[in-house]
């Protein structure tokens, strides 16, 4: 099992979600996060006073999947979240030790 974490542009969320639904992914956790990468922040100007905004808003998606689905999910996210411009985000793949469905107590691949 793997946990896939994707940092994407906020306006791409619906597209990515629909694409993942289409390949049969049944659970996604989404959070609003802030950060910077190579895109850096931006500046805002109020009556001549300039402020640098270092952290820009992004969406973080977490998806737990069984090993055989990993490459398909990564490919789907990459295709649907891509704009080709700087700031499109990153995908991280993390080993997942265990998963438990709270309602039934099922674990492992059954819980996903």
């Amino acid at each position, binding site marked *: 099992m793997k946990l896939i974490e994707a940092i994407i542009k906020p306006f791409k969320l619906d597209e990515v979600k629909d694409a993942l639904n289409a390949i049969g992914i049944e659970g996604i956790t989404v959070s609003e996060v802030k950060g910077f990468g190579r895109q850096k922040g931006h500046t*805002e*100007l*109020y*009556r*001549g*006073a*300039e*402020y640098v*905004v270092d952290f820009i808003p992004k969406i973080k998606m977490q998806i737990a999947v069984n090993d055989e689905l990993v490459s398909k999910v990564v490919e789907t996210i990459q295709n649907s979240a891509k704009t080709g411009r700087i700031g499109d985000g990153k995908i991280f793949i993390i080993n997942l030790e265990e998963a438990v469905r709270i309602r039934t107590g099922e674990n492992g691949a059954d819980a996903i």
Partner: protein
Amino acid sequence: MKLKLYLASVMLFILAGLVPVAAIAEEKKDAAPAAVTAPTATPAAPSAAAPADAAKPAEAVAPAAPATPPDVKPVLNTGDTAWMLVSSALVLLMIPGLALFYGGMVRQKNVLSTFMHSFVAMGIVGVQWAVIGYSLAFGTDVGGMGLIGDFSKTMLNGLVIMKDAASGGVEYALFQNYTKEPGAIPEIVFAMYQCMFAMITVALISGAMAERVKFSAYCLFVLLWTTLVYDPLAHWVWMTEGWLFKKGALDFAGGTVVHLSSGISALAFLMFLGKRHGFPNERMAPHNLPLTMLGVGLLWFGWFGFNAGSAIVGVNTSDAAGGLAGLAFATTTIAPAAAGLSWMIAEWIHSGKPSALGFGSGVVAGLVVITPAAGFVQPGAALLMGLMAGLVCYGGILLKAKLKYDDSLDAFGVHGIGGTCGAIMTGVFATVGATGLLAGNFKQLMIQLIAVLAAGAYAFFVTLILAFVLEKTIGLRVDKEDEIMGLDQTQHSESGYNM
């Protein structure tokens, strides 16, 4: 350090300006009667010249139209009264408008404290004006110097005259602006109209103190400043016995008394108040610009009462709700529209994007600049003054960003610079009921400069003394820790947003 230097240079500038002005004023004393009669003489001149050209046919007409009709008794005009009641309420609405305008520009931890600066001014000045303020500004002149009123109208004494105590029968004192025409309104309506002006003027200064001033110090400042600075200035400029009024200084709706005085005072107060903690490195961006834009809208709306209502004190007219009010209404539409555009375009070219705050600030700058001129200039001149307002005040706030003094919400940049610019431009563009430089009257421009320098210097120095005394007694600022926590929490035990 830079701030101190800058302010010191402003003081020097004002002082340096006062010397020649004092000299001019001395010269003017000899020519004073000429200057005073100038406005009335000029309109009379063409009619006098016309019969001279066509002497024979006009002979019969000339004696039938004497130059000055005799004084007439005041007669209540209900139409004017209705408009002045509405205008007073409109001006009151500007104060919540100002609270929104300023409140949106501070950080979210200070939104309520900034609102309270405007609202508490309504409370303190509302009481002060009835008890003593109206009398100091519009009471009988003390000693004929034209400097301040006496205590004859304290508690609005004499405005409601008891005729028959047994039946409760009363009579209302009338305010007649122009003694050659009968039109008048109840003086108590006039007193309330002027009350709203006093309220908003001191609230304008709060823009410079936002996010760090101690509430108790602010409240005392409101009371003292209105009594010692606003009331005398209103007497100088608007009271028929005031020395600047007698000199012929033009200030239709308060460019000098309201905007110049509050803007300059903001600068003086800053000398003792100092910068906000973390300025200018920390991010202090406005927390809610939609509030600010709503404030701009309400200010503009209320400003129609401010400017068009001021036709009540228009030169040589008794109509409060007539053509003159219409002209002021028109210029109050045109100038801010042009100023919003010119600020927006200047910002677009200079820094790349047309900001909402920029457009809103431009509108307010245009309103400030047209205020002293509203009923004295033609619509075309209002357009030019508006365009100028946006550019000059945009320059003013850029200067602030360069000099790094911390006028949090640009009370000086917009009201001080805009008020000065408007008062001087009135002396250039005036053509209606008075003449300015473009109409060939150089003297008017000099009188405007005298008014600007005198009112500016007086407001600056008295505020400096007030701020010094408050600083040494109760202190102007909150503690650093409280400032970082936010004034809403530490001064009022509330939060603006509980979501």
